[in-house]
């Protein structure tokens, strides 16, 4: 398979890396073979023991893919805080950094260059996952890969999600969410069942997508792809994240919900989250510097109780309420949840708290496995 095949529609393939850097331990790994074969034009460099990555990165900041022998933990809990409710899923750590360039992306604060790291020692990853998942098959897991990278942005080169889907076919207790802003459905043919794979897309108003998610697929493309997944029997997840306050947001987000109703039936949706834009102080400076046209960072933000800035509560509840109301009008109700919000906001927007649902993590676990709560 060449880069970009199996993507539908294939308009938004991220730029191809010009260089492949390899850790010596992974030179003969299946991942290295796959990526080098799919990028025949790219320059290949092997990192000498003790050699620093920045010596090999390009000064012109062109896109580099670094196939790394990762020695850390591949399965991690999602970071939560005591005052705001987290969704409680676990992250399968497959790599770091992203070739897309969303203005609000937190990864800017973590990685200053355009080197996208991919953990190429997949057998170690699978070994660790097997240890965690097979200990007790009665224990269920909701896992995802899109925390330090986009789940599918490099799929056309690495096939990582396809490999994971194939691997997880054997684990009936694990539900995998593949969260992305681009379209690549190549993983689909590796899934033996449509029940435990949840293709997921971030959604936003088209104005925000055009202005702040440059390089990502359009809203229509995402929803078309979601519709295609639904046709194949997959339930999809949608994430309104980050919801941004801008002049005309009411119209923009209302249109997005209308489009969701056009492409998907309530039964096709496992869950939908809503998360307002929030940031650490350092991110604001980076956005100002890297994306000077992005003025949403000057909205009415206050310091939240988790040390992150977030939109003033009445403004964000107004946004949540409008979106929730429009989703409910189309029959999507039980699947809605709020990302990193307090019980106060939950009550105001959804009329209940995570405790009323038996705890958010349990609630989402039930939804992801298709159980009625």
């Amino acid at each position, binding site marked *: 398979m060449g880069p970009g095949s199996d993507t539908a529609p294939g308009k938004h393939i991220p730029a191809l890396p010009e260089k492949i850097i390899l850790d010596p331990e992974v030179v003969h790994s299946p991942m290295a073979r796959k990526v080098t074969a799919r990028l025949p034009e790219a320059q290949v460099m092997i990192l000498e023991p003790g050699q620093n990555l920045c010596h090999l990165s390009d000064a012109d900041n062109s896109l580099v893919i670094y196939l790394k022998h990762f020695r850390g933990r591949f399965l991690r809990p999602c970071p939560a805080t005591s*005052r705001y409710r987290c969704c409680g899923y676990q992250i399968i750590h497959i790599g770091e950094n992203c070739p897309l360039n969303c203005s609000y992306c937190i990864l800017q604060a973590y990685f200053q260059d355009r080197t996208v790291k991919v953990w190429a020692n997949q057998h170690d990853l699978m070994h660790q996952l097997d240890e965690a998942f097979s200990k007790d098959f009665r224990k269920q897991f909701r896992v995802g890969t899109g925390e330090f990278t986009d789940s599918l942005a490099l799929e056309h080169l690495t096939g990582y999600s396809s490999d994971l889907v194939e691997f997880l076919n054997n684990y009936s207790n694990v539900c995998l969410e593949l969260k992305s802003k681009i379209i690549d459905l190549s993983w689909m043919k590796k899934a033996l069942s449509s029940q435990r794979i949840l293709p997921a897309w971030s959604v936003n108003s088209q104005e925000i997508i055009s202005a702040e998610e440059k390089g990502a697929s359009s809203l229509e493309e995402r929803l078309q792809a979601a519709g295609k997944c639904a046709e194949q029997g997959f339930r999809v997840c949608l994430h309104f994240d980050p919801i941004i306050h801008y002049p005309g947001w009411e119209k923009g987000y209302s249109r997005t919900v209308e489009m969701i109703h056009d492409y998907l039936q309530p039964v096709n949706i496992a869950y939908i989250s809503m998360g307002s834009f929030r940031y650490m102080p350092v991110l604001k400076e980076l956005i100002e510097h890297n994306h000077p046209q992005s*003025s949403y960072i*000057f*909205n*009415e933000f*206050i*310091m*939240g*109780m988790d040390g992150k800035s*977030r939109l*003033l*509560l*009445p*403004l964000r*509840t107004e946004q949540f309420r409008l979106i929730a109301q429009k989703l409910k009008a189309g029959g999507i109700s039980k699947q809605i949840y709020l990302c990193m919000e*307090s019980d*106060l906001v939950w009550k*105001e927007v959804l009329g209940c708290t995570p405790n009323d649902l038996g705890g958010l993590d349990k609630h989402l676990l039930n939804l992801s496995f298709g159980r009625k709560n």
Partner: protein
Amino acid sequence: MYNTPQIITVHAESISLDDPCLFWAHSPDNHFISSMEKYGQIEPVLVMAVADQKILVAGYKRVKALKALKRKIMALVLPVADPYLKGQIYLLSNTGQNLDMKKTVLALRYFSSIGRISEEILTNLHLVPGSKLEQLWQSWISIPCSWDTLLAKGNISLECARIMQNLKAEDLEAVYPFFDQLSWSRSSSLNFLTWLGETARMKKAGICRLIHELELAPILQSRLSPGDKIKKIMLVVFQARYPVLSSLKGSLTRKLRQIGAKSGWKVEHLDDYESRELVFSTRVKNIQDLQKALRGLEQISSSKALENWPVK
């Protein structure tokens, strides 16, 4: 470096005192002149011979004092050097001086004008190369030097340089009178500039226009005390930057103050509406105070004052 230093004695008139490397030059006071008169010149001044002229590179105050005393001047003649080395010699021969804001900015302006602020210079100015402070100074010298006196007077904080360096010339000009006429604390000056700048960007207008729209100049020209002027300006700018928050805060503060006034309790909300929590505080000296405070609390809890607060 100087193999054959030569000491000469010359008339003050034959020494040029105009070289820009004398960036801290200032005239001697009477006390200095008297001590020169009493003890004479102990150390030679430093000059460079260019054609038949002597250019002073260190010792301005002594030359001025000796000139006033109509005495000849002892000078060490150094080989001709470029502006960087002249500045460095001047800096090193004045290392004993107390490095305040004014001196630091003058030195940095000089070295920046010749395009060379080396690590050596920074170290001699007690600035750690690459430190946050050094970066702030680098930002400061990118703004017009008309601001230097305001910095030296303490009307504006050096930390504002980070914001000011990104402002357009007309915007910098528009905020100048506010710092020229008022002395701002560090946090007030930072907030003033940040809120103005962010509101302007949000509204896609210049700061200049925003200042006009918010009618800040009349506040500056009013008869209020300087402290009250700053307070009022900050309030207006805050309201422009955070319209919803300031209106919520305004009505809540009024309400909580009313409640507190009757009960003897101070009632505050500290979470910017992220919670509904209120903090009640009071001071008691004795059991009678405590009983009174409890009656006050009962009064509040049995009234309807706190129904539906603060976010509806």
